[in-house]
């Protein structure tokens, strides 16, 4: 449903993503893994046309048979939010701090649909309730009144409110403790089963990949070095880099104890730089 063909991203003096090909199939969960600076987050940004002005993207993006990069800006914006939802790593940055969460969800509905006010409120409350949040309280609350895990779930609710065909999750769990991280991934999983959407999951951490992802693509220095069935790639890594990445993971078995604080918040902040 989304085909990326020879995508390149370059800054003025350096090529960061060097012609990658990637397809997201309907209803699948694709993990795009790689270390910081491999260009995976930029790839995610390029899909929505959200690259900073200093970076230039090349190649073609085809969404449901239509070439996205040639769409006029207004049509491309319609795609965002309606058909492609984003969630980000920095949960604090998901919502504008001085606007009530309900207001911000309402804004999305107001922009992309013709629903009237009471229908919009009902849709927001339903979306929040779907993620087991106290809907009314979250709807009329400010972002700072929620915990990190709640915020990320509210962000998912907002990204899913228009039932997009593709959810792009850019390291959604990196800033969370591992219990909340699991919760968030389970909610994405549940939503996927309910709506049948595809998920493009950007991660640098291979620990959860086997459990949640159907397929995995490994990215290294702006190129995809290996992709395939998640279980296959993780058990029989074909590329030397994948093996190194796997070796860096503390524990791969699903039941293994995870150490909290593996991903310090500074790293999270640094990762978000890509989006500015």
């Amino acid at each position: 449903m989304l085909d990326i063909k020879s995508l390149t991203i370059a800054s003025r003096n350096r090529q960061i993503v060097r012609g990658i090909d990637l397809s997201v199939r309907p209803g699948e969960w694709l993990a795009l893994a790689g270390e910081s600076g491999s260009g995976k987050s930029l790839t995610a940004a390029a899909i929505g046309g959200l690259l900073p002005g200093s970076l230039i993207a090349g190649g073609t993006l085809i969404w449901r048979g239509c070439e996205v990069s040639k769409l006029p800006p207004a049509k491309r914006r319609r795609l965002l939010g309606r058909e492609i939802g984003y969630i980000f790593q920095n949960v604090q940055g998901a919502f504008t701090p001085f606007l009530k969460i309900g207001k911000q969800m309402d804004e999305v509905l107001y922009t992309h649909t013709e629903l009237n006010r009471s229908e919009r409120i009902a849709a927001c409350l339903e979306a929040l309730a779907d993620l087991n949040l106290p809907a009314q309280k979250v709807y009329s609350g400010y972002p700072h009144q929620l915990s990190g895990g709640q915020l990320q779930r509210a962000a998912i609710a907002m990204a899913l409110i228009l039932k997009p065909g593709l959810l792009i999750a850019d390291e959604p769990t990196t800033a969370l403790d591992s219990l909340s991280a699991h919760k968030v991934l389970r909610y994405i999983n549940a939503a996927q089963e309910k709506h049948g959407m595809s998920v493009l999951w950007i991660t640098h951490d291979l620990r959860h990949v086997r459990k949640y992802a159907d397929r995995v693509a490994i990215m290294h220095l702006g190129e995809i070095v290996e992709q395939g069935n998640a279980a296959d790639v993780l058990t029989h890594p074909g590329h030397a880099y994948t093996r190194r990445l796997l070796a860096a993971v503390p524990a791969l078995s699903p039941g293994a104890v995870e150490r909290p604080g593996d991903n310090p918040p500074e790293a999270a902040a640094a990762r978000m730089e890509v989006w500015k």
Partner: protein
Amino acid sequence: MWRSFGKKLLGLLVFVLFLSFISFCLLKLVPGDPVRSMLRVDDVAVSREDIADLRNELGLDRPLLVQYGAWLGKLLRLDFGVSYMTYRPVLGEFAEKLPFTLLLTGGSLLVMLVISVPLGALSAVYRNRWVDRFSRVFSLIGSSLPSFWLGLLLIQLLSVKLHLLPPMGGGSLAHLVLPSLTLGVAMSAIYVRLIRSSLLESGGQDFVASAKARGLHPARVFWFHTFRHSLVPLVTLLSESLGSLLGGTLVVEILFAYPGLGKWIVDAIVARDYPVIQGYILFISLCIVVLNLLVELSYRWIHPQLGWKGR
């Protein structure tokens, strides 16, 4: 919240009283004598008895603290005394002049916002392009321009040469244009750069990227998310420059013979009209203190997560 607000208000009132005491002492310390300047107006020979009589009548021969106490006592009954020059109550004269100055202040704020918000926003969006370079030069020149000179040039150009606007006086909207323009242009010099830099800072925030990723219209993202976030430094600077704006109205009012507080107080100073000066200082400091309080309240609206910061 309202309790800490009340506490703050009370503290500020005490502070204003303290300020009025200092200014009272200062007024008495400086050389010069209102009695002499009052009697000189009549332009007749002044005897020593006349001076002593008038001084006694005005209570100027009593000890300083007694005078201050008397002034405070009257103040409680909202009596600011009587002007030595016009023999009219200070409060009444003040109420007469205040609207003019408020209009001028509002007008120049409007001019400032109309100039600096678009220019600052454009130079943030088109950073390092010609708009940005223009705004840099504009603000550099604007902050070096003597406002009264700008006013003189505007009078020559717009009213003497082109006959578009009345050069002097007050009372109509047309009279308000030139003074507001003079003050507004000078003020916008700082604001353009502030708005530019704070918009750049806000535009780099994660939540702006998120808002864009939701497919919102760029104008909506800009005004409701980026610009709103930039209001904090803007409002802070506004509260800081209110004082200098009031000071600026002083010169501009004299320049344009505009019948506001500024002209009133300069005349009063020259005549050593103590009740007027003392009242004016009290009014101005009250105005500034109250406005600062309002600004702090507005932070609660701009940044709900900050809450009420009780000092």
